[in-house]
């Protein structure tokens, strides 16, 4: 038996023992335990170290709002930091470690930070590290020096670097009514809505449905509340129109009643089931939403309120009732309201000794006196706790007489021996989703809490504690009413379930802070004290939004869940204004931490879409190293054993220029442009003429954007009078299609043209080199391929191995070359026939590297040069700008800045020291390796050229044309490269094109 486990009771399965480790030490717990409850049952009270001061911290809460007990969970090499121990369900083999401690949790060297408390007070970072560098210990440079040490000392858990192998998925769902929260209010709403036939989704962030009923100790319809909610959830589970989502946090409320939720599907399992994702990201579109998100208990602010052993009253009640764990043997209670008396009594019944009840209110109601009497505790009404005692665990606390009106302390302080102190500062409705969805929260003076705003554009209805109705009876009534009105129903005369509950007035006394000496924490997660808030006020921060940023109050995973109201109250007091005039921050998504994996979901890993060409399997089977280009996979090289990448592409390019080479060009964008006005349309879209192109011929075309900059290039083939096949670069295929559609649909609807993307319908093989024509002649039937039948830029139709093909004679490599297109389904068949025909001629296949090498040798541009900043003139393509007609971009392309003489222009670069060049390297004029300056431009593409026997590159250089034949230097300090180069024409190889014209 664990030291603090109760004899009986709770929702845990005492027959099932679970083994896990925390900071390397083995522990056991029971099925149904959280890491927090299991560790408390083992007598562990120290869970972590605080953010700035490295103070020892225990468990403050029992749920999602836990700011202190954040742990890192390890699964193999994968680590997930910053998970509240209260939200980790234990499983066999669970491995968790504490955070922010060095070298160990019990002995932390940085805890000395708290001795120099002033050093890390509010605004420390801004004051010390921002601004000009004055002296050795100030300013941004000092920050850069200190950052490493401070980041180690101050912070939360460390993210891992191992690859996360878990699978995540996204799900879209639609419903009539989404109910958020499954306490008595949520269950009643879901039942009422489903009774009306509505499609209902009920989301609960905890593993069990039922909310507070699981630990309230109340009775509903004559049975324990925990049983009643269990039965209610069981009934809903059997209904076809209800979907129950346990372990699902609704974290975002967006336009059009769209909500985002995270379902933790397998985090509680030792191993996931077959096909189960770790997390599921739900996008839920709901006609109507019932917010039944309950409320969060607030801490009280007093010196030492962060010592392990001090926790919220309801959290202790929950540990005792739901998990069968006593957080201490000798319990004290410090409260400003009635709700906490029930907690004290629950702990007494579970076997603890309640030593003292300290209430700031001078008078207690007779009901509370009666409850207090049952706990047999000493009563201190009109008193406050002014200090806590102990080290890494609570050993006692001090009380003193307290005047609620003035906040003054008087009389002698008295020490009380205790190992657990419960505190309750009243309750705040969990209004986060409502705040995300609409207007500003409204302060309620009686409840001393912000209530949800009225819905604005979103369709939601509130119920239960979320609306400030804190009793279970009210929750049940409001829940049912909300369920009816969410479906447009009018309610039912049937009787409501009857609740038996402890008495109590929900309104707290307006006391948030006890001002005595010592650190009183407002935001436990960020070590923000009451004095920090006052310091921010003294330094002129009056807006609550500024306060938040300056002190970091309510940031990170806390998001103000526990700290918001106490922080505001202290600020309001400092300003001398009532709380509603100080206002509150608007809550933003997410309500609780969301895994990045769930947001990426199937867009990452195995499920990411990929595009494969028809010949993909052939490439892989024949030794290609595949390269991912956007969604496409293309061969990079077909390497031989022992070859480097450079050796492989040099061999492929050399063989192509010596005999013949073939490359898969199926990825090129292909768009069918058809209709009576197709030629006219192309004249408007391209800078050059297409209406003059003969049927059966192709032409190279250039497109500009509306602003006159170059957009895309490619060849377009005239297959018939009204039938063109446009090709685009692989990367721009989608953009060009949208560009054409926009002009046809919106700007020129009078043109009779239809465009169709046919990229996936055609397989393409480009075969080039001195032997290319002979290879084709050997395998093509139904047409001749000689110079007369197939001149440069000509198109013929024929057959290869019984399959119809279309062949266009055009060249990217600079060799005599042909593009052979067949139906996509015949791609491999035709490709293999070409390989067979090429064998006697030494035909090789080549990949993107050799393709790039040959295009650099020819000085052709690609996306690296058409980079959205260059004009046709910059790329020496001004010969393509027709003067006979307007075209897209023609009006804007001659603007002053676009024709300036010092623009970056395309040039060739030759390495003069026989060393490789790198993309992105700068070209400079001065021989000053130590201090490179005065960049003339940069390299866009580079390779070793087998045709020239040199390292060459294309570059964009200021006034490029005029610098041809001059010397300069390449400067690449990141890669330690500096060396002499010659600037030359971009047409390195066969500039007059005699090879391709043949």
């Amino acid at each position, binding site marked *: 038996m664990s030291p603090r486990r109760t004899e009986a009771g709770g929702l845990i399965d005492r027959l099932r023992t679970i083994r896990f480790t925390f900071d390397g030490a083995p522990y056991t717990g029971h099925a149904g335990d959280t890491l927090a409850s299991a560790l408390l049952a083992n007598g562990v009270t120290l869970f972590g170290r605080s953010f700035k001061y490295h103070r020892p911290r225990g468990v403050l809460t029992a749920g999602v709002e836990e700011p202190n007990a954040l742990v890192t969970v390890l699964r193999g090499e994968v680590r997930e930091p910053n998970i509240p121990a209260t939200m980790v369900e234990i499983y066999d083999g669970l491995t968790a470690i504490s955070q922010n401690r060095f070298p160990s949790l019990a002995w932390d060297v940085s805890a000395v930070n708290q001795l120099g408390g002033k050093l890390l007070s509010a605004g420390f970072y801004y004051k010390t590290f921002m601004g000009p560098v004055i002296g050795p210990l100030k300013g941004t440079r000092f920050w850069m020096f200190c950052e490493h040490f401070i980041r180690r000392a101050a912070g939360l858990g460390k993210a891992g670097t191992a690859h996360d192998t878990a699978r995540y998925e996204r799900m879209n769902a639609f419903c009539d009514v989404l109910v958020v929260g499954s306490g008595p209010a949520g269950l009643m709403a879901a039942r009422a809505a489903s009774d009306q036939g509505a499609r209902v989704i009920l989301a609960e962030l905890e593993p069990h449905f039922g909310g507070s009923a699981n630990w309230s100790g109340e009775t509903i319809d004559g049975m324990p509340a925990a049983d009643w909610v269990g039965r209610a959830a069981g009934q809903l589970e059997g209904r076809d129109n209800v979907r129950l989502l346990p372990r699902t946090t609704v974290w975002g409320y967006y*336009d059009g009643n769209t909500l985002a939720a995270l379902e933790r599907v397998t985090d509680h399992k030792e191993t996931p089931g077959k096909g189960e994702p770790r997390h599921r990201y739900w996008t839920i579109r709901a006609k109507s939403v019932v917010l039944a998100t309950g409320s969060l208990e607030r801490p009280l602010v007093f010196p030492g309120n962060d010592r392990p052993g001090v926790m919220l009253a309801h959290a202790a009640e929950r540990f005792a009732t739901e998990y069968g764990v006593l957080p201490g043997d000798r319990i004290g209670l410090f409260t400003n309201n009635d709700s906490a008396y029930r907690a004290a009594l629950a702990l007494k019944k579970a076997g603890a000794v309640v030593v003292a009840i300290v209430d700031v209110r001078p008078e207690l109601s007779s009901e509370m006196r009666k409850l207090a009497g049952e706990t047999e505790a000493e009563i201190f009404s009109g008193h406050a706790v002014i200090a806590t005692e102990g080290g890494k665990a609570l050993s006692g606390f001090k009380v003193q007489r307290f005047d609620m009106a003035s906040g003054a302390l008087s009389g002698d302080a008295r020490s009380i021996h205790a190992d657990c102190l419960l505190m309750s500062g009243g309750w705040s409705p969990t209004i986060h989703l409502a705040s995300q969805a609409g207007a500003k929260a409204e302060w309620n003076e009686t409840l001393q809490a912000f209530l949800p705003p009225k819905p604005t554009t979103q369709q939601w209805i509130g119920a239960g504690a979320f609306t400030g109705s804190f009793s279970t009876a009210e929750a049940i009534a409001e829940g049912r009413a909300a369920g009816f009105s969410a479906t447009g129903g009018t309610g039912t005369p049937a009787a409501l379930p009857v609740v038996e509950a402890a008495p109590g007035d929900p309104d707290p006394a307006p006391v948030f802070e006890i001002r005595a000496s010592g650190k009183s924490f407002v935001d436990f997660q960020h070590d923000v004290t009451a004095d920090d808030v006052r310091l921010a006020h003294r330094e002129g921060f009056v807006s609550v939004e500024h306060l938040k940023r300056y002190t970091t109050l309510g940031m990170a995973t806390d998001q103000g869940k526990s700290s918001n109201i106490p922080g505001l109250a202290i600020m309001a007091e400092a300003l001398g204004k009532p709380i509603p005039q100080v206002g509150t921050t608007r809550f933003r998504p997410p309500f609780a931490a969301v895994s990045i994996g769930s947001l990426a979901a199937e867009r990452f890993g195995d499920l990411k879409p990929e595009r494969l060409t028809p010949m993909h399997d052939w490439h892989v089977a024949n030794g290609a190293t595949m390269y991912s280009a956007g969604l496409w996979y293309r061969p990079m090289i077909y390497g031989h054993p022992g070859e480097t990448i450079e050796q492989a592409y040099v061999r492929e390019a050399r063989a192509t220029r010596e005999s013949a080479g073939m490359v898969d060009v199926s990825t090129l964008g292909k768009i069918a442009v058809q209709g009576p006005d197709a030629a006219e349309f192309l004249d408007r879209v391209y800078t050059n003429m297409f209406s003059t192109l003969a049927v059966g011929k192709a032409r190279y075309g250039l497109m500009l954007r509306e*602003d006159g900059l170059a957009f895309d290039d490619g060849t377009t083939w005239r297959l018939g009078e009204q039938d063109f096949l446009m090709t685009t670069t692989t990367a721009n295929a989608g953009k060009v299609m*949208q560009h054409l559609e926009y002009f046809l649909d919106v700007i020129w609807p009078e043109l009779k043209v239809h465009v169709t993307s046919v990229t996936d319908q055609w397989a393409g093989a480009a075969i080039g080199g001195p032997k290319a024509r002979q290879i084709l002649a050997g395998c093509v039937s139904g047409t001749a391929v000689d110079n007369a039948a197939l001149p440069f830029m000509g198109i013929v139709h024929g057959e290869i191995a019984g399959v119809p093909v279309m062949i266009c004679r055009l060249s990217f490599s600079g060799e005599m070359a042909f593009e052979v297109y067949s139906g996509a389904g015949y791609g491999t068949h035709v490709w293999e026939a070409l390989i067979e025909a090429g064998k006697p001629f030494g035909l090789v296949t080549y990949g993107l590297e050799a393709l790039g090498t040959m295009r650099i040798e020819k000085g052709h541009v690609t996306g690296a040069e058409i980079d959205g900043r260059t004009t046709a003139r910059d790329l020496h393509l001004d010969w393509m700008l027709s003067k006979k007609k307007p075209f897209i971009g023609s*009006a804007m392309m001659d603007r002053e800045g676009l024709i300036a003489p010092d623009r970056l222009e395309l040039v060739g670069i030759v390495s003069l020291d026989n060393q490789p060049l790198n993309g992105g390297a700068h070209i400079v004029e001065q021989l000053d390796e130590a201090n490179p300056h005065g960049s003339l431009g940069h390299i866009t593409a580079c390779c070793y050229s087998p045709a020239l026997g040199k390292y060459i590159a294309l570059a964009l250089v200021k006034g490029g044309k005029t610098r041809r034949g001059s010397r300069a230097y390449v400067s690449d300090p990141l890669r330690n490269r500096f060396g002499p180069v010659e600037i030359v024409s971009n047409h390195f190889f066969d500039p007059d094109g005699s090879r391709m014209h043949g």
Partner: protein
Amino acid sequence: MLITCPYCGPRDVIEFTYQGDGNRQRPQPASQNLDAWNAYVYDRLNPAGDHNEIWQHSGGCRAHLRVVRNTLTHEISSTAFARGDHNSVARHRAEDKP
């Protein structure tokens, strides 16, 4: 956000591509009026309220829609085919003389 495509019905915004301010008026293709071209290419209305926008149903029927969307609330008060909006053609023809 849902956009009601006149052809496909109400669809999630993820299926659509924003194609810019619907108030832009393209000058006549041969126009040399650089001010008009500059306004068309660079000037955008940025109202706090109803805004006339072009959206393409790129993940659906690929039609371009003229959408009036409130930039404060994302409320969409009307959608229609941009192609059916002959005003856009008439407007740019009347707008300036080449």
